[in-house]
């Protein structure tokens, strides 16, 4: 499993937006989509998400691969829901009746799920994680949670490397993963060593922080500034948001 931020490297207009704006818009739209129930609005959301994803100009194959993976669960839903959902029968497949409501329900889930994921990819994955963490701290998320997120992210790669070293050593000693107790035992020992090493490293990290005068807070030296494009993005997004909300409520 690679831990690289493949999508954060890019230069489309979305990449250049203020991460704070992207976070706020992403959050509001995700919830609006998740709570929408009208086929009309959901189709519009999906179209919007597709437009966004096209405009970030990145490796489409990669995105398609992600989508296939994410739609496995959705496939399961298509496999069951049309048959078990009560409603008007429209089709019979081997004695099982397919209900119209069931098909609609599954379709709505598919649209919702894919729209949200595309939105997340186009808005959040196009910023580096560090920028997102910085943006979140500016959006008044509890500081302790921010520090935790920062440290997890900071040491994720260190520990991944540690894992790779140990795993390689196992492979060099002719370890082969099979379905047996020996495999599970070996992996359990690997996990234990990983936990112990991280615990010991965390003690050193904290001591180093104390040495550098840590008093419970990090001081941020750079600041975000909303540019013209960000204002434009925020205004257009809120207009679309209100429009779709009104539409969802059936007022248009």
């Amino acid at each position, binding site marked *: 499993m690679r831990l690289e931020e493949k999508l954060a490297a890019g230069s489309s207009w979305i990449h250049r937006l203020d991460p704070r704006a992207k976070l706020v818009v992403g959050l509001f739209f995700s919830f609006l989509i998740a709570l929408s129930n009208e086929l009309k609005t959901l189709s519009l959301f999906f179209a919007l998400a597709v437009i966004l994803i096209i405009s970030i100009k990145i490796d489409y194959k990669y995105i398609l691969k992600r989508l296939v993976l994410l739609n496995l669960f959705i496939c399961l839903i298509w496999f069951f829901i049309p048959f078990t959902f009560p409603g008007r029968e429209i089709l019979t497949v081997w004695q099982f009746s397919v209900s119209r409501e069931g098909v609609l329900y599954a379709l709505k889930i598919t649209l919702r799920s894919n729209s949200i994921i595309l939105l997340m990819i186009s808005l959040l994955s196009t910023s580096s994680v560090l920028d997102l963490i910085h943006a979140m701290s500016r959006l008044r998320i509890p500081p302790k949670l921010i520090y935790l997120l920062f440290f997890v992210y900071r040491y994720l790669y260190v520990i991944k490397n540690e894992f790779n070293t140990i795993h390689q050593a196992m492979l060099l000693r002719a370890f082969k993963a099979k379905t047996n107790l020996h495999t599970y035992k070996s992996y359990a020992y690997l996990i234990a060593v990983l936990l112990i090493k991280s615990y*010991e490293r965390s003690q050193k990290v904290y001591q180093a922080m104390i040495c550098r005068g840590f008093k419970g807070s990090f001081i941020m030296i750079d600041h975000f500034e909303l540019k013209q494009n960000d204002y434009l993005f925020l205004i257009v997004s809120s207009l679309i948001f209100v429009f779709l909300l009104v539409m969802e409520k059936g007022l248009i």
Partner: protein
Amino acid sequence: MHISEGVLSAPVLIGGAALTAAGVTVGLKKMKDQDIPRTALISAALFVASLIHLPLGPTSVHLILNGTAGIILGWQIFPAILISLFLQSILFQFGGITTLGINTFNIAFPGIAAYYLFSFAKINSNFRLGIFSFISGGFSVFLTSILVAFSLVFTEQSFLEIAKLSVASHLPVIIIEGIITVFVVFSIKKININILGGVKQNV
């Protein structure tokens, strides 16, 4: 193990978010400044460990390790899981923001159960330690799969079949996770017992 975006209904999403917010608040309250690096690095290690593919017959499974996380982190498992899931959604485009609440709750709550099981059980022999490790590891996964099933069925009655299937497909993971937890706990106990918050020193 986590539920995709766009499947659950509003009450489930909002209820999950509220419960997770409460859990995270308690977790952050209990976390002193000097605990921040410890919680973070343990979460990172568990994150990496959950990427391991364990072979199971022709397929492979991923570990959830919420039992182990609960035993080590206690209430701090809530912020830890929240952060892991958030990073997963950013780095792997796996899941999104709206299900963060309910998914965190479904994974973290069983961890808390394992934590209390471990701290209240009288663990005074290696045999009992083994038994309780197995139960904590396996039961946490079982509880998670039950919570996932409930979230689905509570959203829509017709999800019952999928919910049953999802619980059934987790049965092998429950056993593997139990076995792994036993070995993890024993080797940690041998090397550096300070990590296990819940285990008393008299083992």
